[in-house]
């Protein structure tokens, strides 16, 4: 494939590279479509497909984030779905057909997107009824994934001391993990952790009662 690149500077190789590209493109796409590539290479009518590029697509939740591509030839910020750039930093127009051809089997291998549950406590280490009712749903999500990995992380508010809360977070996580196991959770790995008061959902000063921060988060992936 090096010849395709060198065709730009090496004139003796250019006619050969051009014909190879034309045949390859016609075979792959069933025709000669000149619309999808930046102007480069010696072929007048049929440009080669781009080799190294990035395309922004919507996240599984429907939102579109941002990708910044910095390379030898420039910098591109991609903000819209379908926007693309060569990895060397040049802008690129590309059609869906080419994307499908280049990434079809890669996209088909994408694992099921993880889910995360937030469980709340009515007191101490006892789950609220609404959160306890979520446990079967967590197990169902786990069963839907091959070799599922689960992390159970306990959190507290800022009442009590830092050390006490480290332990309380761990007691909450351990309790939830035990309940999940009792109800039939089987996991490739199950990790039980405590963030204590260090990772609040709602930031508060010290010594503050905040039920939203008294929680266990369960990551199922």
């Amino acid at each position, binding site marked *: 494939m090096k010849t395709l690149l060198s065709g730009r500077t090496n004139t003796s190789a250019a006619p050969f590279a051009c014909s190879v590209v034309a045949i390859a493109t016609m075979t792959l796409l069933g025709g000669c479509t000149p619309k999808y590539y930046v102007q480069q290479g010696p072929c007048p009518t049929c440009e080669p497909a781009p080799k190294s590029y990035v395309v922004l697509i919507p996240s599984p939740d429907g939102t579109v984030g*941002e990708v910044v591509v910095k390379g030898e030839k420039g910098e591109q910020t991609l903000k819209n779905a379908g926007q693309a750039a060569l990895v060397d930093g040049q802008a690129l127009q590309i059609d869906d057909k080419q994307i499908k051809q280049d990434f079809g089997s890669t996209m088909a291998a994408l694992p099921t997107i993880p889910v995360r549950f937030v469980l709340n406590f009515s007191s101490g280490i006892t789950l609220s009824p609404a959160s306890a009712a979520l446990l079967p749903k967590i197990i169902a999500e786990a069963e839907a994934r091959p070799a599922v990995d689960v992390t159970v992380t306990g959190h507290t508010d800022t009442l009590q001391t830092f050390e006490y809360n480290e332990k309380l977070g761990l007691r909450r996580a351990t309790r939830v993990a035990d309940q999940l196991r009792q109800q039939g959770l089987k996991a490739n790995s199950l990790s039980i952790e405590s963030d204590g008061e260090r*990772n609040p959902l709602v930031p508060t000063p010290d010594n503050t009662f905040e039920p939203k921060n008294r929680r266990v988060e369960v990551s199922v992936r």
Partner: protein
Amino acid sequence: MLRVAVIAFLFLWGNAMANELAIGHVKNVSGDAFVTTGGKKTKADIGSPIQQGSVLETGKKSSMGVIFKDETVMSFGADTVFTVDEYSYAPAEKKLKFGSKLAKGSLNYVSGVIEKLKPDAVTVGTPSGVIGVRGTQFLLRVEE
């Protein structure tokens, strides 16, 4: 007998260590795929652990899907070489970093929690540049 016990112990300990250091796991494999960690190359299977420094590879007409601890999801197409250079996911300590490299092949990337908590903490290097990721899904192809 004692020797058997020692070997069994080492084996279990080794597995426990691998899982302790795991930052992600393989979720699906089609065709030939490998994980190389600490210079040791093993065939990738569903559930295989990935560590910081691991190199993930696929062969011809092969693919592999993986998920990391922070819920970053990736899949790789055929003839891919992907390296996890740096990975820290400890929100309570504010240690958040995911630096990787796609030497060749194709990648479908879906953002996890690291970027949500710390934009600019995630980069994917390529032979001719670097890609910064901010909460999204993208496709990346690198051909030699």
